[in-house]
């Protein structure tokens, strides 16, 4: 579980940076390394990181609206074909965090971009179903998504090499063979 300890170290570091960023008059949005295309808000939340990221990247709350997160968190016992159930307190804690920072929370520019393309009553369960995602990835050849080295579109880090650090800059992308 050295990995976990390293993770906690990274989280602590990221948390410190985020706190610093949040203390600046930035409209509540913490920016990362200053890269122009880097819009994913840097957020920290212990349970979100620990629980969601034990199976997959802790996807940013800014990528789905509140109603979507409520659907996701309300169905964890059958989460895309797997049982990801949590104790009720942890589940409620994570949902609060997701709702607070959701795409339609008005708290981050990333969310604004996602919502620009969202239909009024849309509550997608998958980030990959949002029109924002589809458009951002329209240059990726269809076959690339199912390559063994990628697995599925849920595996951001397959191509976005620094996704774990919340960096999705275009120049960091390398689609594996």
């Amino acid at each position, binding site marked *: *579980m*050295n*990995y*976990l300890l390293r993770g906690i170290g990274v989280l602590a570091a990221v948390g410190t940076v985020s706190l610093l960023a949040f203390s600046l008059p930035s409209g509540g949005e913490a920016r990362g390394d200053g890269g122009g295309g880097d819009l994913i808000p840097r957020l920290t939340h212990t349970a979100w990181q620990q629980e969601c*990221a*034990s*199976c*997959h*990247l802790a996807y940013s709350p800014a990528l789905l609206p509140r109603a979507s997160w409520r659907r996701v968190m309300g169905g964890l*016992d059958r989460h895309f*074909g*797997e*049982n*990801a*159930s*949590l*104790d009720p307190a942890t589940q409620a804690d994570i949902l609060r965090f997701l709702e607070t920072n959701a795409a339609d929370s008005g708290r981050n520019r990333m969310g604004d971009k996602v919502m620009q393309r969202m239909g009024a009553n849309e509550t997608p369960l998958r980030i990959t179903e949002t029109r924002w995602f589809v458009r951002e990835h329209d240059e990726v050849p269809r076959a690339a998504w199912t390559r063994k080295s*990628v*697995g*599925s579109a*849920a*595996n951001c*880090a*397959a191509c976005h090499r620094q996704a774990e650090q919340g960096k999705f800059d275009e120049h960091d992308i390398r689609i594996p063979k």
Partner: protein
Amino acid sequence: MARYAQQAGVAVSALSPSRGEALYRSEHPGRGGAAQSCASCHTANPKQAGQTRVGKRIEPLAPAANPERFTDAAKVEKWFRRNCTDVLQRECSAQEKGDFIAWLNQIK
């Protein structure tokens, strides 16, 4: 391990590493009709790291390769609950959980 033996109402010495290994390797119908087992994600060798369905690393199950394993009772219960339901379509019994850990614990 002792906790599960107690829940099952048996002595720790009555836990069976070989039954634990059999459970780990037993195959069950999974998604799309393909067979699945614990080894599907955790690999055939529990001293190796596994991989989740979306490609994230799973630290090894065997304490010999990962000393943190089975040190957090709530975490252990959480994963038995989820993974037994996914792979076996039912919860595991205390005896099965005890056997499972007994096997992993004796791997050198």
